[in-house]
Structures are given as structure tokens and as C-alpha cells.
């Protein structure tokens, strides 16, 4: 089999570095290069990974790529994915998929129109512990899941990437950054859709001068009666032994489960840098996700996730911000259909929307014959 030519659009998101490491060591992959509009960052990437810098996304996309990964700042996901779609290159997009529902829909629509595979980076569907608990729930052994208590906390991200705390680039704070992984995991495990969200947030960690939320608690009600709560705060201290974590407890009518996606932990103490460090020695979910993306890019079907799950995340985040403004529960629309199985080429068939469709307080123009108007959260 010939090598797959892969590119990375922007190293704004730090996950790009992990992808670069993984792709560089994968057989059958030629990591052709990257694009980045930050010259300093681009120089560092070239120095560190030996990657060729093509400057801009459109030049990168001219390099006969078989697949591209978008790791730009959140609000740039939409134009970058559209560029990839127009170039006919299958694309994996970092989360959050987009910062506005209209953007998410236009990304999907553009990829569908160009027959281009579009995936969202949700590695937790490839997490071996989470796959195991998904199977346990599906088997019925835990009964009906009535409550889920979820934790996906991280450190303040401005230590490594300042755009995370600039709302004009990130679209929002901790809720934007950390709510969507667990939402996607819960949707998958429960095989159910969220119908409402209540959110509360504060800015009590991080620089007092920031203008976005740094801590958040969400309560998400699902259609069949589960209540899931998520702590998505940037509340791990700077000297925490690791970046954060993802764990949850399922309370079911016949049993319960406690899951720690990074529970295979080694503790290292190094007196030279005076640190305790936790390393996860479990199988690499990012690697499994990349392998799955590349096989989708080759046209092979995948049973795992699809870009419409990214859209659900965006809808939730938008509704969560509406809840912050009103301090009330906000209903989720769910009228946009999310196909249950991903058939590879066929992604998130969006269907017609009426011109006054409202999702999470954001008006979305009908797709038929009209380009969607991008609506931003204030």
C-alpha cells in the first residue's frame, strides 16, 4: 500500500504536537507538512518535529494530501474545514467542532457537497476503558442508568496557548473546551440524546482579568431520564501531577460503574524538578482515533462516531451559554438528525431546515438555496 500523505493545518491546538509525534511514527504515513499563521510557532514546530512549513492552509492543501487534520483556534475550524472540503481532502477537525451551530452546519454541508469525509476529534470513543463500560451498559447488566457524574477537568490552558482564553479566538472558556468529550461519551454509552442543559459557571480560577468562564458545572437531562452532570472546569492547579483527567460514575438500577479513562497510572517523583508526575500507561486512544480517521480517509467504513456528533457538542455548548445568561434550564432542539452509524462516505445528512429554525437561541438560515449566516455567541 502506498504511503498516505497527511498534513496538519495549524499547531494552534497543542494536540497537533501529539498528532505529529504519532503520525511520524506510524507506518504507511507520510507526514508531508503543516501550515500555521504564527511564524514563531511554525519555526518551533519545524525545529522540533522536522516538518515542512507550507505557510498557509491552501498551499498545504495543494500537496496532494490524502488526509488533513485541522488544529487551528476554535473559530477558525469553519474556514479551515471548508478549505479542506473544497480541496477534496478528508478532514479530522479538533474539538470543539465549531463555536456556532451555523458554522457546524456549513462545515458539514460543504464536506457533504464535496463528498469529503469529515470527522471530529473525539478520542474517548477509542478509549479502551470507556469501550468496556459502553459494552457493559449495552449488555443491560447495570440496568437503567439514572445518573452519571462526570469529571473532565483540566489545567488553565493559557500556560501553553494564550488563544484559549481569548474569546475572539476560542469562542468561550472551560465549557467550550471541556464539555463536549463527556457529552459525546454519554450520548454513546446511553444511546440517547440530551434534551436540556442547566449550566453554572464562574471565573474564580485563572487571571482575574479574563473575560470568559474558567469553571463550569453542567446538568444534562437525557430523553430516557438519565441526568448527567459534568464538571468541565480548568481547576487543576499548575503543579497538578498531570494535565487533568476524564472520569465518570454511572448509577444504574442494577449496578454502578466508576470509570477513569486515564486510570492506568504510574506515579513518578523526581527530586531534580521537585515534581510528582502521573503517566498513563494504557493503550493510546489518540493513536486509535488517528488510525480510524486514516482508514475513513481511505474510504473504509468505521463504526465509530461521525462529524454530526461534533454538531451535537456545539448545540450543547451554545445552549449551556444560554443557560448561564438566564440561570434556567435550556431545552435542546435535536431536530437535526444524527445518523446512528457512520458509513464512511455518508456523513450527517442535514436535511432541510425551515428558515426560522431556532437552536439554542441562534437563528439558522435554511440550507436550501441560501448560504447559512454565521451567528456568533456574544
Amino acid at each position, binding site marked *: 500500500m502506498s504511503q498516505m500523505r497527511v498534513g496538519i493545518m495549524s499547531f494552534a491546538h497543542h494536540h497537533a504536537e501529539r498528532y505529529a509525534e504519532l503520525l511520524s511514527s506510524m507506518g504507511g504515513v507520510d507526514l508531508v507538512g503543516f501550515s500555521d499563521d504564527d511564524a514563531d510557532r511554525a519555526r518551533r514546530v519545524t525545529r522540533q518535529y522536522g516538518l515542512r512549513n507550507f505557510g498557509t492552509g491552501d498551499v498545504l492543501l495543494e500537496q496532494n494530501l490524502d488526509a488533513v487534520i485541522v488544529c487551528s483556534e476554535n473559530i477558525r475550524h469553519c474556514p479551515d474545514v471548508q478549505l479542506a472540503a473544497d480541496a477534496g481532502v478528508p478532514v479530522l477537525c479538533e474539538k470543539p467542532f465549531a463555536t456556532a451551530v451555523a458554522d457546524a452546519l456549513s462545515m458539514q454541508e460543504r464536506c457533504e457537497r464535496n463528498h469529503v469525509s469529515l470527522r471530529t476529534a473525539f478520542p474517548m470513543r477509542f478509549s479502551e476503558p470507556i469501550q468496556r463500560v459502553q459494552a457493559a451498559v449495552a449488555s443491560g447488566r447495570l440496568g437503567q442508568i*439514572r*445518573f452519571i*457524574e462526570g469529571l473532565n*477537568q483540566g489545567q488553565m490552558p493559557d500556560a501553553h496557548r494564550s488563544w484559549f482564553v481569548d474569546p475572539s479566538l476560542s469562542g468561550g472558556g472551560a465549557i467550550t473546551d471541556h464539555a463536549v468529550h463527556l457529552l459525546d461519551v454519554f450520548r454513546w454509552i446511553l444511546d440517547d440524546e440530551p434534551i436540556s442543559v*442547566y449550566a*453554572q*459557571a*464562574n*471565573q*474564580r*480560577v*485563572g487571571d482575574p482579568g479574563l473575560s470568559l468562564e*474558567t*469553571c*463550569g*458545572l453542567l*446538568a444534562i*437531562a437525557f430523553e430516557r*431520564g438519565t*441526568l448527567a*452532570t459534568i*464538571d468541565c*472546569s480548568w*481547576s*487543576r*492547579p499548575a503543579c*497538578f501531577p498531570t494535565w487533568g483527567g476524564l472520569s465518570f460514575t454511572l*448509577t*444504574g*438500577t442494577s449496578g*454502578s460503574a466508576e470509570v477513569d479513562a486515564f486510570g492506568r497510572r504510574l506515579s513518578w517523583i523526581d527530586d531534580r524538578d521537585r515534581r510528582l508526575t502521573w503517566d498513563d500507561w494504557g493503550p493510546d486512544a489518540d493513536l486509535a482515533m488517528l488510525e480510524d480517521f486514516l482508514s475513513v480517509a481511505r474510504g473504509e467504513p468505521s463504526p465509530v462516531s461521525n462529524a454530526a456528533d461534533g454538531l451535537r457538542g456545539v448545540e450543547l455548548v451554545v445552549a449551556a451559554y444560554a443557560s448561564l445568561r438566564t*440561570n*434556567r*434550564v435550556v431545552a435542546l432542539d435535536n431536530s437535526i438528525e444524527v445518523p446512528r452509524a457512520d458509513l464512511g462516505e455518508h456523513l450527517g445528512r442535514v436535511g432541510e431546515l425551515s428558515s426560522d429554525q431556532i437552536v439554542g437561541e441562534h437563528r439558522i438560515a435554511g440550507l436550501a438555496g441560501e448560504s447559512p449566516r454565521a451567528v456568533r455567541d456574544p
Partner: protein
Amino acid sequence: MLRVGVLGGGFIARTHLRSWTRIGVETHLYARRGSEQLALDFSVTTHPDPESLMAAVDVVDICLPSDLHASHAVAAALRGRDVICEKPIATTLGDATRVCAAFRTTGRRLLVGHVVRYFPEYASVREGVAAGRIGDIAVVHLGRETFAPNRGAGDWLFDERRSGGILVDLMIHDIDYAQWIAGPIIRVYAQTARVRSTTFDDHAVALITHKNGVLSHLTASWAKERPIFRTRIEISGASGLVSHDSRDSDPVRTTPALDELEGAEVGLPGTAHLATGDDPFTAELRDFLTCLVNGSEPRVTSVDSISALRAALAARESASCGEPVDLGSSK
């Protein structure tokens, strides 16, 4: 020697009697049921009715079902007695208000047994947080998960009209702790459900917003397997983090388990059974007695107990209507 009269014959009455024996007071007891066994296990003077007990003591210690707290507290105050009362102070705000009025008018003192403030790990966390060890508090997680007490289906505890349900009986411990840690509560969103029980809600979750913006996530459960009683604390702040999990805190683990709780009717956290020094109930009752004698304020006041009840009742309202409830608007 001070004379203390315990009203009640159940599990908590037994726990209090054990403490009063350790503290060393003259103990009296009235119980509709169960007084014979308690009289055998403890050195107490039993009484045929509450009035007889109240006449014979200085302090009345109410260990009755929750819906009986208010009437007996008021009766004791009118009888000229100071009162120690198990949580909750009452099961309705109306009753709580009546209780407060009675103690205000009579000048007697009321101390409500929110004992979690006297658990050493909880007190120590609070002390460290107040001293700034984690900076400004941001997010609080509290969990209290155990099995449903081994009682008949008709028991008062499982009758929400009598006990207030899981939010007023169990979660109220952590509601009080959250307000002690993070200050006044302005908004509550809660949900309860039947998980293992088919007749009563045995699991609850609450999202609490404090006036200063701190967010608290509380879990309370009667849906665990016996003999589990797990308590958890995690508090993150601007410059640090503190956590405790009772599951990881047992200094002695034996196989087979030597835990005397194996056959217990009701769970108590493992740290409740400190053999040397004061167990939390003894520490609490000792502090209450000292405050009654000195006229000083204890670690938890009756005002605290009312705001805890108000928040617990708001949680119940939220669970039934499916929306958050703002405090300040509720009377």
C-alpha cells in the same frame, strides 16, 4: 452534674447515649419503643412520657423522627429547657420559624446537630481552606453514599412527608458543609430518583451556586451496597486543590473484614468510630454542652441549620419542578 434527657429510641438515640456516657452526664431517656434495650446497655433513668423527662433534666436532646423535632423543641423551650436537636431542625420552614420564635421568646438555647462539621477530616479541610491553602475556592464536590437503612418499608425515614426525603435527611449534611466552606447559597438545582428502591427516591444530585460564585456539586445516595458508607470531598481553588475520599482513608484493612458495621442497621462513615479520643458525635455533644454552660456559640448554629434546611427544601422543589430554584425569592 448536668442532666441530659434523650427523646427517642432508635439508632441516633443510641449513638448519642454512647457519647453522653463518654462525656459523663446524668442521662435520662424517653422512647415510645426501644427504651428497655437502651436502659440495659446504658445507665439511664427512663421516663413514661416526654413531659416527665423534661421536668427531670436541664437539657433535652431530641433524637426523634424529623417531623417531630419542631413540636418537641418548642415544648422543651416552653418548659424552660435548653435543647440539642438532631438535624434537620424541622422538615418545613414554617416549623423552623415557629421553633426559632419559641427560643427567642423564652430565651432558651437551641443547638442543631449538624455533626459533619465535627468530623476531623471535614473540620481540617475547612480550616486549611479558610487559612488560604488553596486560594479562593472555585468548585466544591461533596459525596455521601451509603445503603438504605435496614428498616421496614413503612418506616418514617422512607416517608418523604416525615423525613423530608433524601435531600432533607442525608444531603443536608453536605449542604450545611458547603455553606460552611463557601458561604450563603443563592441557587439550587437538584434531581432525585429511584435507583434501587421501588418506593422511595434513593439517589440525589444537586448543583448549588453560592453568593460569591462558588459552584458546589453534591451527591447523596442510599443506593449503594451494604456496608458501604463513602464520603468524598474535593475542593479546587485559585491556587490549589484539597481532596479526601473515605474509601482511601482507612488505615487498617483486614481480610476478612473486621468492620463491626457488617451487620449494622444503618451506615455511618468509618471515621465515626474513632476508638481513642472523641468520635465526631462525642466531639459535637461535648462542644454543645460547653457552649450551653459558657453561653458561647458552637461550630454550627441554629441559624446555620435553618439556611441548610431552606436550601434542602429548595433542592426538593427543584427536583419536583425540574428547574433551578433561587433562594431569596423563597420564604
